[in-house]
């Protein structure tokens, strides 16, 4: 499980990429906890989208849950909401 930080800007994208690659190196579904995210930038949204596409190519599960409202809003703004949650808009949790 990767827990996304509160502030997920371009600087935080580097560590996130490392975490995602680590998770993908291990077998099984990749799970990301996005419940604490308060601010998120394009860099991190792109990484999540890339991870989603990579998971699909590997035929493995990729789940972002829970999802904070700012994370969902950023995904919508940048037009990758359907890519990240193809099964439909996720329920959001209040960020702490």
């Amino acid at each position, binding site marked *: 499980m990767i827990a996304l930080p509160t502030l997920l*800007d*371009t*600087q935080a*994208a*580097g560590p*996130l*990429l490392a975490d*995602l*690659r680590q998770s*993908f190196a291990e077998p099984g579904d990749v799970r990301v906890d996005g419940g604490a995210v*308060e*601010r*998120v*930038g*394009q*860099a991190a*949204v*792109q*990484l999540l*989208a*890339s*991870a989603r*596409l*990579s998971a699909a*190519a590997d035929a493995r599960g990729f789940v972002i849950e829970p999802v904070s*409202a*700012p994370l969902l*809003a*950023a995904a*919508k*703004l*940048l*037009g*990758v909401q359907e*890519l990240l949650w193809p099964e439909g808009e996720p329920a959001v949790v209040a*960020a702490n």
Partner: protein
Amino acid sequence: MELDEIAAIFFLECDEGLAAIETHLAVYDRDDSDPETINTIFRAVHSIKGGAGAFGHERLQHFAHHYETVLDGLRNNKFSADKQVRAILFAAFDLLTDHVLAAKGERDVPDDARVLEQLDAVAEGRLSSADDAAAPAPAAPEPDENGFVVQAVDLGALFDEPADSGPAPWKVVFRPEQRALDNGQEPSLLVAELCQMGGKLIAVDHESLPALDAIAADESYLGWTLELPADLDRDEILGVFDFISPASTVIVERSGEPAAADTPAEADEAGFVVTPVSLDDFDIPAAAPAAAPAPELKPTPAAPAAPAAKAAPAAPAAGPSPTIRVELDKLDRLVNLVGELVITQAMLAQRLSESGIPTLDELSDLDHLTRELQDSAMSIRAQPVKSVFSRVPRIIRELESETGKRVRLEVEGEMTEVDKTVVERIGEPLTHMIRNAVDHGLEKPEDRVAAGKNPEGVVRLAAEHRSGRIVISVTDDGRGINTAKVREKAIERGIITADQQLSEEELENLIFAPGFSTAATVSNISGRGVGMDVVRKNVQALGGRILIANRPGQGSTFSLTLPLTLAILDGMIVTVGGQTYVIPLTHIVESLRPQPSDIHHLGPDAMVLNVRGNYLPVHTIGRLLSVPGARAQPTEAVLVVVETDAGRAVLMVDDIQDQRQVVVKSLEANYQPVAGITGATILGDGRVALILDVEGLVARHNQIGGDFEMLAA
């Protein structure tokens, strides 16, 4: 260029933008007939919004957006600007200024809820007497509670409307370059801004998004296509991209009927674009980089007029003469070097003269050129006082609302130039003077009416050059200074004794005494009894003077007289016991060699000089500064009558040598502060001469030697 430098430029441009808004708001308030006035205000706010978006100052961006919405409505005549709307425009300007300061980190983020609500009320036609309430401005987006501004825009009315004759909506393709995330830039904020303008995301291109093993965390891979409302200006949309790298792809074009296209984009006005986006490519989708996405983007079917017209914007707009920004340090170094050159030139001239070499033409040419070079170097540092004057309207507005008085501000001579250091340091004295004029000078509207005056008081702020100095005056048409009341208060405060006889002028000057206040109640505006004292101290520190012209019942004028520069000083070169000193010319009234009958001794050390019936205390420089060998007899010495804030006094020196301009060197910076001395200069013979602090010396002597004026009286 580092991000910090770009951000610094952005803030400089914010300041320029705010100044432009302030100026044009004042014009608009008087006369709103020229559409260019409101357009200029709109563009300035828009540029601030664009920069704020690029640098992630979301609160500033959010506020500017709401402000801009109202300005846009005004320039498109969606509603009219009645008095109430104008007041809101001014209030919004003040808040915009506060938001910029907050973005700079110089203050807390202001509470803008009330003004935002007012702006929205104007924009939605709830406030203004709009002619056409059926055509409301686009609904202002709600701020996201997390600060990441995501649109909550109701576009229904705009898009569902069967627009059978209006222009087609805009299609915007935006694909940031690969390095667009460098230095903390956030292209998604630009997408958010487009959404705020009523944009709707219609496609995202993630074709080039690499798989996880190949992706770089800090590169940009996405691109977007948005649809924006047809009634936006093309320039407005392009303005969003003012601060992005030219390598990014931006295409803005109408997606529908080209015949109804808006007027072609005008050349971008100068000033606010750091990296101008080339407009050339925007209308030619074929010329866009191969990466340009959006298969759904249809080239405009037939737009012969528009692209042809739009090829023109590449030509730069005619504007004011070009300028460059220079670091202040570099300028100071230049000014300092020129100062050294002036000194060296004077030394050379003196050496030649001492060697008996007759006057050379070349030497006088050199002298002439050196002076000219010095003037030019100083003029580079000169700035119009406008930057200080521009704060005043806001202070007046705040005072109006705090005091309930009505004030009309008249400004004159705001382009008068003075050295940057002086400009920077007159802000505080000026603020106090303005507050004093409104709080103490002007009467309440009902009192004015009772006195047969216009209920609206006038405060006139003026600047002019006069005899090589700048004079800044604040005049009010209020009640004037009531000297009887001043006297009463001064006695009550223990500043003067009840039996002390003072002239009208001396009574007026009591308001500069520390701890003096005539306000009936202490308010948060003035009346703390520190304001005018601070004014005088600051003005003195600048080598300036402050004068009062009082017209009881009709108002008063406070005039600040300041040197144009602090680097050069006109001085009288005097000697005391073999030492050379400089007395600043601004203090000198006259100099004389007294007759024995003019001198009256008051004890062993104190004496007064009878100057045409006035007895002035004599301060012996040799004794005050402990200079050995100074002349002790006034009849053998030269007496210099000086004007100070403590009244006139006499300085006794041995001889007068010359009168000339000297280059001031700071003692604080080069040595340490010395009581009685304000600085030093280097004379033609290479010796250092100290510049006398006349105010300090006279004040100090008064304390040591007692009040001569009282004794003389």
